[in-house]
């Protein structure tokens, strides 16, 4: 019996015991071909998927290495069937290659005739192909480069794209490293992408993905199109680029709902790109507006479906995707793989944390109990009213007050969804409130005062979610929230709670009503945050009030 840190499960998940002395070596060995799924405190879960194996192949690993890594680190014998399956899956990548030929343009070539025959017989793929060239290759319509890769992946024969890229319009971009330095892993990520040509860089929240994007642009030295999730993000990108690179205000354009600037570096939102009028996408011309040398996709795991379709036509341009996770809630990981590219870099999460680049916050869930009359009212409330009812219970006021009291002297943000509740809270806490109707000037003044520590407590509505200049706080208290996707919420949390200059951890409270839907939503959040490695605690409101 070996005593390795790894346990291979029959559902192709890998359990890694983090405290094991060989855990680090093992993590390095399996990271190329297994996706980290959950990272709670003791045992991390990785999953082997065909895509992960193909990613490993694209990165130059072969089945022998993968099998060796599993066998040498596994505590128990690895099921033979699993090993066979891995070898079989990996051997499927690269049997087909997309190549550029001087005479025929784009060709699909295979060293394995049987595979090529199978592909030629596929009804979905046939229309994308041109004439047969010799025994082992066939012409491909250049416009189908993306579609054929998607289709080939679907039938289990992912093609290696060796057809190269256009250089695009030259534009000088350099990193302005004054007072800051590219972190080693950011450098590695940018280099790995550049050598691979196109692909995805996976970095945890707060690890500085924007800077990796900037470094990629410095490699490309060409006009760049950046696609981001929303306007706030677009602003942030612009600020960061101005700060970190030689680019000037005039060189960076924003292409959003309000502004339509096309400049050597253009930042567009998914929102505007997917806006349709009379059934057609109005802003497709942006892709052809310039001879882009690089396309950057921020938050690839949120990339909407229409962008995939547009991306299929951009296969000759270099593409880099930035994301914290390859897991998509809609299951379109395959499209990311075939259209944007394989994973090029994956950060050693634990190492980054140890080096202090990222610092997960401490999360505390405070449960308040509804009074008897409230419980009755809650039981009788309409389904759509229930959340509002339990989220705005007056019991939360006292607890919030106590929490603020506990963190006297620290910068505290109180975040909520319902204006009435916020007004009431502001009154109780004697703190200013920022909501939708607050004027920009007033907002800026309050933010500045908060930053200058003239004000220590600030009550904000969900406008804070979209406000880029929201100051940093060491404590955030969420009294009510939206009930959207878990990932969105975690990201918002990440934005508010950056690692502090002093190195101290941040703290995030959510005040939740016991035995209500509020608590159900909290359970989802708890699971997600715990899986991400955040410390999570649940306490009773009574304990807070008692001052424990």
């Amino acid at each position, binding site marked *: 019996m070996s005593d390795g840190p790894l346990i291979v499960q*029959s559902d192709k998940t890998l359990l890694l015991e983090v405290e094991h002395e060989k855990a680090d070596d093992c993590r390095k060995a399996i990271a190329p071909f297994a996706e980290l799924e959950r990272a709670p405190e003791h045992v991390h879960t990785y999953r082997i998927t065909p895509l992960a194996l193909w990613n490993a192949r694209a990165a130059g690993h072969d089945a022998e290495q993968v099998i060796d890594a599993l*066998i040498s680190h596994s505590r128990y014998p690895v099921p*033979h069937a699993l090993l066979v399956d891995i070898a079989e899956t990996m051997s499927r990548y690269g049997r087909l290659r997309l190549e550029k030929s001087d005479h025929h343009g784009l060709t699909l070539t295979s060293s394995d005739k049987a595979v090529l025959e199978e592909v030629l017989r596929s009804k979905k793929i046939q229309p994308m192909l041109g004439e047969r060239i010799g025994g082992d290759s066939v012409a491909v319509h250049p416009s189908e480069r993306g579609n054929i890769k998607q289709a080939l992946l679907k039938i289990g024969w992912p093609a290696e794209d060796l057809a190269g890229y256009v250089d695009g319009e030259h534009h000088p971009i350099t990193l302005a490293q004054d007072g800051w330095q590219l972190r080693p892993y950011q450098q590695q990520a940018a280099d790995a992408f550049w050598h691979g040509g196109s692909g995805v860089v996976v970095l945890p929240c707060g690890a500085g993905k924007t800077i990796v994007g900037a470094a990629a642009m410095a490699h490309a030295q060409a006009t760049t199109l950046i696609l981001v999730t929303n306007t706030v993000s677009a602003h942030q990108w612009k600020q960061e680029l101005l700060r970190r690179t030689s680019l000037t205000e005039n060189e960076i354009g924003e292409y959003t709902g309000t502004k339509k600037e096309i400049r050597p570096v253009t930042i567009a939102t998914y929102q505007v790109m997917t806006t349709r009028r009379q059934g057609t996408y109005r802003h497709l011309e942006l892709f052809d507006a310039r001879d882009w040398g690089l396309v950057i996709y921020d938050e690839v795991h949120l990339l909407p479906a229409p962008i995939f379709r547009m991306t299929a036509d951009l296969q000759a341009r270099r593409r880099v995707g930035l994301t914290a996770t390859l897991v998509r809630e809609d299951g379109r990981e395959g499209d990311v793989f075939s259209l944007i590219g394989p994973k090029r870099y994956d950060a050693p999460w634990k190492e980054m944390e140890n080096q202090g680049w990222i610092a997960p916050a401490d999360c505390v869930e405070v449960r308040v109990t509804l009074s008897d009359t409230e419980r009755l009212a809650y039981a009788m409330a309409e389904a759509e009213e229930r959340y509002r009812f339990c989220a705005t219970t007056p019991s939360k006021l006292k607890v919030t007050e106590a929490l603020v009291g506990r963190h006297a002297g620290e910068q505290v943000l109180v975040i909520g969804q319902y204006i009435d509740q916020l007004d009431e809270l502001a009154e109780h806490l004697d703190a200013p409130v920022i909501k939708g109707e607050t004027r920009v000037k007033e907002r800026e003044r309050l933010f500045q005062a908060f930053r200058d520590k003239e004000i220590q407590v600030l009550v904000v509505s969900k406008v804070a979610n979209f406000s880029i200049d929201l100051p940093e706080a060491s404590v955030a208290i969420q009294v009510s929230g939206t009930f959207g996707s878990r990932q969105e919420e975690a990201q918002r949390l990440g934005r508010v709670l950056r690692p502090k200059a002093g190195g101290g951890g941040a703290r995030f409270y959510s005040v939740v009503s016991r035995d209500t839907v509020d608590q159900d939503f909290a359970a989802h959040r708890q699971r997600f945050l*715990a899986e991400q490695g955040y410390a*999570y*605690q649940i306490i009773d409101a009574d304990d807070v009030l008692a001052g424990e």
Partner: protein
Amino acid sequence: MNTDFTDWLRGLGDDRVRALVAARPELITPVPAHVEGLAIRATSPSATGRALDRLDRFSLAVVETLLVMTAEDGPGLAYGELRAAMAASVLPQEAGLLPGALRAAVDELLGLALIFGPESALRLAPGVRDVSESPAGLGPPAVEAFRHHPPERLRELIEAVHLHDAGGEEPVPARLAALLAEGVIVERLLGDVSPQARAALEELAWGPPAGRLPNARREVSVATAQSPIEQLLARGLLAATGEETVVLPREVALVLRGGRVHRDLRPVAPPLEGAERDRSLADRTAAGQAFSFVRTVEELCEMWGVDPPGILRAGGVAVRDLRRTAQLLDLPEWTAALVVEVAYAAGLVAASAPVDGEWLPTTGYDGWRVKATEDRWEVLAAAWLAGDRVPGMVGERDDRDRLLNVLHPELRRPAAAEVRLRTLRVLASAGLGLAPTAASVRERLAFEQPRRRGAYRDRLVDFTLREAEVLGLTGLGVMSGFGRALLPAEASSRSGASRPGSAPAELLAPLLPEPVDHVVLQADLTAVAPGPLTSELGRRLALTADVESKGGATVYRFGDASIRRALDAGSSADDLLAMLEKHSTTPVPQPLRYLVTDVARRHGRIRVGTAGSYVRCDDPSVLDEVMADKRSAPLRLRRLAPTVIASRSSRAMVVDALRALGYSPVAESSEGDVLVTRADAKRTERPPSARPGPGPAGLDPDVVTAAVRAIRAGDEAHLARRRPVAAPDGQVPRSPSTGTVLALQEAIRQGARVWIGYLDSQGHATSRILEPARMEGGYLTAYDETRAAVHRFALHRITGVADVN
């Protein structure tokens, strides 16, 4: 009957006859009356065929060589001549191995009575010739090939073969055959034909010896022959055996073969080829697979216990049910089918009723489940090994185009167990750490049993290799140590039941992951058991949390529902936390602790019970009265509230009883109450005939000895060397039937004579002196000294047994 063979057989020592019948048990089933009977049985086509089937390729080649080189009634071949003939056929690089191999083969064949005679004149046993079609790929001798040719045609052929022979003798096939047997003549004829014709002959030379030709019986002569084939037909180098078939006569083929009967013959089995693996890694892999197989079977039984699939009218499990089972077990369908079949073979699942039944775990399963993993594996592996069912064919159609479902009654093949065992023996014979390729295993089996080849057997071999890996008999294609121990000892080794070395379970046990008694608890409300849990902890955790992932480890997830389940089963929050604390290597995460107490807080706040009826009355004092009355005790009343009493009895009974007490109650229409009962997992009895009978394990040596003794005695009587002896006077004392059987068994073992009382077929009481030989199927075979012959006696007619003296 060939008296030479019988005489030879009679002349053999007792030990050799014993060896013969031990190797060919069918010869004494039933025991023949005398040596002549033994000889007749040994030379019958079916018995000869069975004996030949057991020969390896080299021994068979010896038989074939003798067959080709001797005539039916000819004088036989000396050992030296035989060796010379074989030497011509053997691969040059393995010629050194020939003397040893030939010696062993000849001894084996003599032992099996397939050949007989002294070293100076070895002959084929009668009957061998008749069951050997196309030996060594040779066609029939010319005598037979030309048997049906009309005389004038024969005359033409003889003329064409040998000019000077035209007139004199009879135009019989034998004459032509004699001519063709002359190498010089055939060589000359071959020189006459065109190169194409010669090439056509070369095609047929090494077999198969027959070819198809339209209008094969055409009239051609040397002068009129056009095509190459016609040239051959005209010279008797090919014989037409039918309207459209031609065959190469044996004599011609032998000349073409340069006098050799075989080519590239190997005196020993070809070596196995394959990858070398680390032996301990292979053993561990196999053990891991064995472990997960046992677990899968358990999972299957648990699943079917609660939600059993129905039995199809044709028998077996519906395709849909198999697919669902495979999905739930997370296995490919063929593996799921194997799991089901093995569970069935081991008697763990069975049909609850022949018609409209369900497939349910048996009571045997409950016994199996509590055994140690290694013992459980041994039960499964042994059942798989011995079974004649072929799970690999699930999903195929039989010759009547019926779909073969899993557990279908027709899913059995007589050869399955034998091929399986042979395949595994080949794997076991491979060097330690060698993973033989499927092709080389098939090659080896083809050498060992050349007469039993075929695509069907090759498939069984492939199934076996595939399934052995799933069951964990092999790991990475290498036979595991414990798998090797599972194979029964070779039938030829006479030691009987005791296996060499340790039992498989003992060898497997240390390789299995050791049960762990702790888990790792995490803040995301999961528990990871880093190995198989001790059964007590496993049971408690399974109750408290849901399994999320299985394999070497098990991942459990705690949730509201799972904690509630544990509370329902009678644990308290403190019990649960104490259990978790005790078995966790790390502190219990705060959210988990909170979850348990939070669920416990709400647990049981509302109480639900069952009642047969209720009594309500606005005046509590009346109810006080009812409760106080002793006569109301049988109603089992319970006061729920001042104005409400619940009763376990039915409404009608309560109403009647209250009336009897002098009240005048009115029945109230109820809204009905719900009975909540947990459905128990169902079980069925395993059918008595689920186990296959004993395999070809060989005969008990005592039986063999007794049988040979009886044959000898019978033979002496047959040859009038023994006279009937008179039975003693008086009646044999009656003995109980069990005593009779025991006494006879003892007599067989000791070779003793007994005195029995016997009711003959007319019902007359007789008295005999017997030498019991064999008891089977309710009959005793014995040499009857009073009649001087071997007879069979029905056991139920034996009235008593006593010692002769």
